[in-house]
């Protein structure tokens, strides 16, 4: 995979298969290609060579809009910086992917999702009126709203204090278990990575080690 102006190979020779429902933790130093790998899986960046297939869909050769439709159906994303839309209420933020997918009951479903993350009392609040933890819970509700096949999380606790981060992690794993979504989680925290079925370590664009957890 190359960056725009000069071709720099960020990911090299990644050969990875993730089973449906599996949780994969990704660790590695800054610049090792963790985020790039996640973007390629989300269809937000394209691999310059090789093949990518997610949830039974080959992403090779899909147009920008086809990739958007793919994300709409299959992918939920959670970011370190939450990335809620500031002009929309919590409810609207959760409803937006459903609205885009054309669900008539977008708001009812969004309300259920917010209820599931314990925010039924915060529906009409704007991101600016929510705490960091509440924002990330809203983001989780948004990610799960479309019943994704795969959840991509990029350091979801990075901007939160320890206790709140722990609550988010518990919530995220609980929801994933309930929905049976595949999880790919980037983290710097080895303990968090250890909660996954498998941990990949990236360095210099390659998977340098792979460790299977003994599932509890």
């Amino acid at each position, binding site marked *: 995979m190359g960056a725009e102006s000069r071709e720099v190979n960020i990911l090299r020779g990644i050969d990875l298969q993730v089973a449906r429902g599996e949780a994969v933790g990704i660790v590695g130093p800054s610049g090792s290609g963790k*985020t790039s790998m*996640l*973007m390629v899986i*989300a269809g*937000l*960046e394209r691999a310059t060579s090789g093949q990518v297939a997610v949830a039974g869909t080959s992403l090779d050769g899909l147009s*920008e*809009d086809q990739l*958007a*439709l*793919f*994300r*709409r*159906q299959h*992918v939920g*994303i959670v*970011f370190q*910086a939450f*990335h*809620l*839309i*500031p*002009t*929309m209420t919590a409810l*609207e933020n959760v409803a*937006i*992917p459903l*609205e*885009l*997918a*054309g669900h*008539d009951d977008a708001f009812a479903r969004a309300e259920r999702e917010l209820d599931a993350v314990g925010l039924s009392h915060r529906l009409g609040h704007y991101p600016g009126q929510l705490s960091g933890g509440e924002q990330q819970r809203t983001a989780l509700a*948004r990610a799960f709203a*479309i019943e994704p096949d795969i959840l991509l999380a*990029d350091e979801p606790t990075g901007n939160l204090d320890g206790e709140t981060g722990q609550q988010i992690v518990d919530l995220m794993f609980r929801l994933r278990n309930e929905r049976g979504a595949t999880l790919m989680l980037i983290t710097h925290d080895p303990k968090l990575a250890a909660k996954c079925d498998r941990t990949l370590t990236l360095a210099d664009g390659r998977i340098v080690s792979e460790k299977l957890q003994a599932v509890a």
Partner: protein
Amino acid sequence: MSSLPVALRIALRELRAGIRGFRIFIACLALGVAAIAAVGALSASVVESLERDGQAILGGDAEFRLLHREAADGQVEAMQAAGQISFSRQMRGMVRLENVPDQGTLVEVKAVDNAYPLYGAITLNQNISLTDALAPRDGIYGALVDPNLLTRLTAEVGDKVRLGDALLEIRGTIAREPDRVTSVFTLGPRLMIHGDALETTGLIQPGSLVRNYYRVRLNDGVDRGLWLDGMRDDFTDAGWRIRTTEDAAPRVTRFVDRLGLFLTLVGLTILLVGGIGVSNAVRSHLESRIGSIAVLKCVGATSSVIFRAYLIQVMLIALLGTAIGLLLGAFSPLLFARALEAALPTDIPFGFHLLPMVQATAFGLLTALVFALWPLGRVGVIPGAALFRNLVAPTAGRPRGGVLITLAIAATALVALAVLGASRPGFAIAFVIGSVAAMMAFRYCALGVMKLAARVNPGRDAGLRLALANMHRPGAATPAVIMSLGLGLAVLVAIGQIEGNLRQQVDQELPNEAPAFFFIDIQRDQIDGFEAAVRKVEGAGEIERTATLRGMIVGVNGRPASEIAADPDQAWVLQGDRSITYAARPAPDANIVAGEWWDADYRGEPLVSFEADAAKGIGLNVGDQITVNILGRKITAKVANLRDVDWGTLRLNFVMVFSPGVLDGAPYTYIATAKATPAAEDGIERAVISEYPNISAIRIRDALDLVKVMLGNIALAVRSTAGLTLLAGALVLAGAVAAGHRRRIYDAVVLKVLGATRGDILRAFLIEYGLLGLAAGLIAIGVGSLTGWAVMTQVMNTGFTFQPLLALLTALLCIAVTLAFGFGGAWNALGKKAAPLLRNE
């Protein structure tokens, strides 16, 4: 489910962030729309009031005008059968105080009958009836005058004056004459007398330039159209000009129309300049929404949903700006109508006019659309991946095909609206081409300036290095500043250059070459005596004289003149009566561009020499036939040659010069010009007036003073509107400065951390804005002067001299404005504390 409702919902949610970033956008649109709506509303009001007062302005339901002669008995009887007639006559004359017989003042004489006025009423400043004011008292007829005449004559009501051979008593002054269409250019004040009084003046002589008006108030039940058709059929050779209430004030209508077109184009320029502000505002808005757009992409929004959402948002805001503009524009007639009424024959009512409002709305929305589409089209380029990285680089790249097609359609619609809505589409097309060319010129010049800034070696000067870097870095304000301010300034430069040239021509060129006097209505038996009288005065120079009478072109190659589709610039040739003359030889300075002059002793079939531009305008070539009605007689002549005439010399020039013999039997009079030293002018006028009271003397100096005043008034109006263009430019500039403000604060903070003093930073910012202003000013001078040159040489067919002082002032103004904005921005940036910003970053 269509994606539009989702897009609409997203747009409405996005609007919750408020319209702070769109203030310049709204102001730019509102200003342009207000200008266009105001012009439209005002001209609609004027046209409406002209229509409403058509009968009073015309003085009847229909008007028949004959030159030199009166209508035949049969013709008058036919008019009387249909209704009531009022007969009035107008001509120029010299009026003198009874006790100062050799000092005259040129007046516009109007002689009326007892039926006058058929519609409306004349208002006098004295408590006296019109009949009493004009009736003879002790054998002396009364006269009503324009108050100006009293000032000119240093006379008062009750004084006696002479007009030709007649003695008249001034019985009052006229406050308002219902049928007087104040022309922008009248040489003398009004003197109104009774028709019987005119007969006693001796001014009515064969060939005198008198205009006879028969106004008819039709009886109930007479269908005007049918009746006029009948009159035209019954008196095919009458040679009269018929006017109805619909075209009661054609000159005013034309003037309003032209001024309206011009001001609409100025309004459009404001919108174009504002459009750059729109574009900048949309771009910086989208840059501030990169996060939201990326989130939408991550959760599955397609580019087209996002594009539509932001398009809807931008157009809703455009609707707000347009609405504000409409409101301002609709009420502006309240402000300007009073000022216009002084120059119009009617008062202007305040009313709502739908069409100009619709037109202004369309202009506003289409401009917003055209200028917003390009930056909007690039939302597709903003990657969802932006959320994973700190993506701050401005979005670049070309919008996709669909957006480009929409852009092309919107731009075409805008051009079509400008061109089809204009009374002179050719003019509008030239404007469109010119403004597109100007915008491209500014764009490329801006890119050139950026390239240059990148190349210049600033040496060891850190301030200069920073300034130059700011001018050419990606996302620099350079194109925005140069285009917005430059375009506004270019309009100002162009108008300044045109006005300066016109003023220069009036001020400087004429007095050296131009005659001091025009004399009209010189009878054939007076011409030699007249010449001798003028020559006797010390300081009198060359006298040029020529036989003349008036005639109207009624046919071209056998087709009626009314059916000829003439170039609007030259249509005047066919519309009224023209002075004509005959000559055996061409004038010494004649420039024959086609065909040949006739032999000096030619006596064959009638030939005519035609002025080249006028001939081209009505599609006339050498060998064609024209038919001219002269005193009821139709003369058909073959076009022998075409002449270029420089009207600017004020010599005796004619559109049509006939071959000898054609006018021999006609009762022509002479007109003459005389050159004179300024000191000799009074003497010449005295000599002529005391001996020949029927000859009217027109002082060129007075006429030129009038032209200067007129030019001054028009220039003021034009400059004020051009000033609005500059205001729009300044708004856009303010927007551009504001858009770069965050980056500027950040730069200032980082520079302070690195040890730069406030002075260092301020200096760098000022150098940057000074250079930008200089560049914008220089380009504006180039583009504006080129426009001025094109208008002077191509539209007005006259010379052009570059006015360096004006150009210099413009450049200085430009630098001052940019420096002021740059300084304001920099000062604010310098005030920010470093610590909190660095922590946040």
